[in-house]
């Protein structure tokens, strides 16, 4: 759906993007993650054919963004970092204007505007002047504008920037609703947002893609899994049971009271199940209360990459 081949962008001496290449399939939800100034917005602007690239090519739905920008604009719904709104217009008039410019047929404009008003939960404010709305509402009007022509691809640049927690929840919920039918790219510097929204993450650092990975795989490095097990029994038996299990190594044991211990183990053999461990616990008459895997957080991974 979206292909980027060796995209580079220079602003004078400054190299904003260096040889960026990736492919995004239809229906994927991809998060662009990076610090402020890493090149996320520049990349999005090139994909939406707003900015020309200095070298390299980009395709959206098979159309070259530099050769056929109008065809690309038809396929894309784009929400820039600051929602592009006219403060003097009413929400409805603005969405109508957006529909007119985005080639929605005259007959369908009214229905389509009503549809997005409902989808973005804007019915209550449809006749209100945009300048009087709260930031959360403005952001939703921005999203409504992006989807009014039913685009195949939606590109959202920092959609939750500057919102309060409840507004953030509303916007995220809205983005999750979009994903069913469309390819979505979301950029953010908020790590937890990517975890909640995207299934794949592209990390951009100083204009280069340093990570392109499935989010699940990225968060759990395959070779080392940390496991926390809560068990009830005698300490001696517990340690013996762990020793008998080949696939784990004991790192720490902590007494929680009333014969309950928390074990910190490391999965050394890279097996995905803990059958052997549980069997050994049962053999020694130990009750297993809880087993949990500690996943790496995006924060840890991000900090490691940005060191």
């Amino acid at each position, binding site marked *: 759906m979206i292909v980027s081949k060796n995209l580079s962008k220079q602003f004078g001496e400054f190299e904003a993007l260096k040889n960026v290449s990736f492919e995004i399939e239809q229906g994927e939800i991809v998060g662009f993650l990076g610090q402020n100034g890493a090149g996320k917005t520049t990349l999005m*602007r090139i994909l*939406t*054919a*707003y*900015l020309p690239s200095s070298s390299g090519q980009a395709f959206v739905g098979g159309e070259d963004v530099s050769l056929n920008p*109008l*065809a690309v*604009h*038809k396929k*894309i719904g*784009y929400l*820039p*970092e*600051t*929602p*592009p*709104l*006219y*403060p*003097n*217009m009413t929400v409805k*008039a603005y969405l109508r*204007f*957006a529909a*007119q*410019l*985005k*080639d929605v047929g*005259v007959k369908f404009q009214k229905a389509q505007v009503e549809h997005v008003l409902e989808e973005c939960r804007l019915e209550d404010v449809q006749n209100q002047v945009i300048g009087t709305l709260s930031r959360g509402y403005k952001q939703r009007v921005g999203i409504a*504008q992006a989807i009014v022509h039913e685009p195949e691809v939606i590109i959202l640049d920092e959609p939750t920037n500057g919102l309060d927690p409840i507004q953030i929840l509303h916007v995220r919920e809205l983005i999750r609703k979009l994903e069913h039918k469309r390819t979505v790219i979301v950029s953010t510097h908020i790590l937890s947002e990517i975890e909640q929204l995207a299934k794949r993450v592209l990390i951009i650092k100083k204009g280069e893609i340093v990570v392109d990975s499935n989010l699940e795989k990225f968060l759990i490095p395959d070779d080392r899994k940390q496991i926390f097990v809560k068990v009830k029994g005698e300490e001696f038996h517990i340690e013996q049971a762990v020793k008998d299990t080949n696939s784990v190594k004991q790192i720490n044991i902590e007494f929680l009271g009333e014969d309950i211990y928390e074990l910190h183990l490391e999965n050394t053999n890279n097996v995905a199940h803990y059958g052997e461990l549980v069997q050994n616990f049962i053999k020694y008459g130990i009750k297993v209360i809880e087993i949990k895997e500690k996943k790496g957080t995006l924060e840890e991974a991000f900090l490691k990459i940005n060191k």
Partner: protein
Amino acid sequence: MKKIFAIANKELSGYFRSPIAYVVLIVAVTVFNVFFFMIIDENQEATLRDVFKVMEFLFVFIVPILTMKVFAEEKQLGTMEFLMTTPTTHMQIVLGKYLGTLVFFTLIMCWTLPYYGIIKFFSHPDTMTMMTGYIGIWLEGAFFIAVGLMVSSWTRSQIVSAILSYVLLFFLYFASALVKYTGGFFQSIIKYLDVMGHTQNFIVGLLSSSDAIYFISGIVFCLVMTRISIDTRIWDNI
């Protein structure tokens, strides 16, 4: 075409949602009325010749106020990015905005039409001369708007846009005063650029193709320059 009208409509209704437009409308019409009364009272002639002169002088001040926001505001609000990522060509954006401003300007002009009725009621004016006079100053206004639009496409700041437009329009308006300080080829260019000379012919009832070509080519030139500055996103680079 539909998109040009959609943008023109948005532009025009934008004028009526902002207080500046009403101020411009009221001030312009009031000043026109005062001068109309004074000039007719003084000259005792059944002609709008001198009224037209006052009007064209005022255009130098009015037009920058009308055009300063056209592109500068879009860039300030970030809506330029919205317009430019819709499937709309840059020429459609330019023409839509030009049309919207031109219609608002024409509405201001319409407020002066009763002058003809008043003169007609009391006297026997030369209708044809008055008509060519209206065509002349309308073309002049249309040209000034194109200049203002072009300047507005260069910058993010409405103030810079207004001041630069004033400078350019003053130059076009007072170019004849510079003629005597120049010589040779340069002098003939300045003479040709002088807007008053071309409008003057219309006002006295002379319709010539060279004057019409001056205005129309001026408008086309400015609109093409506007399009080029949008194509190259000149405001990001200067």
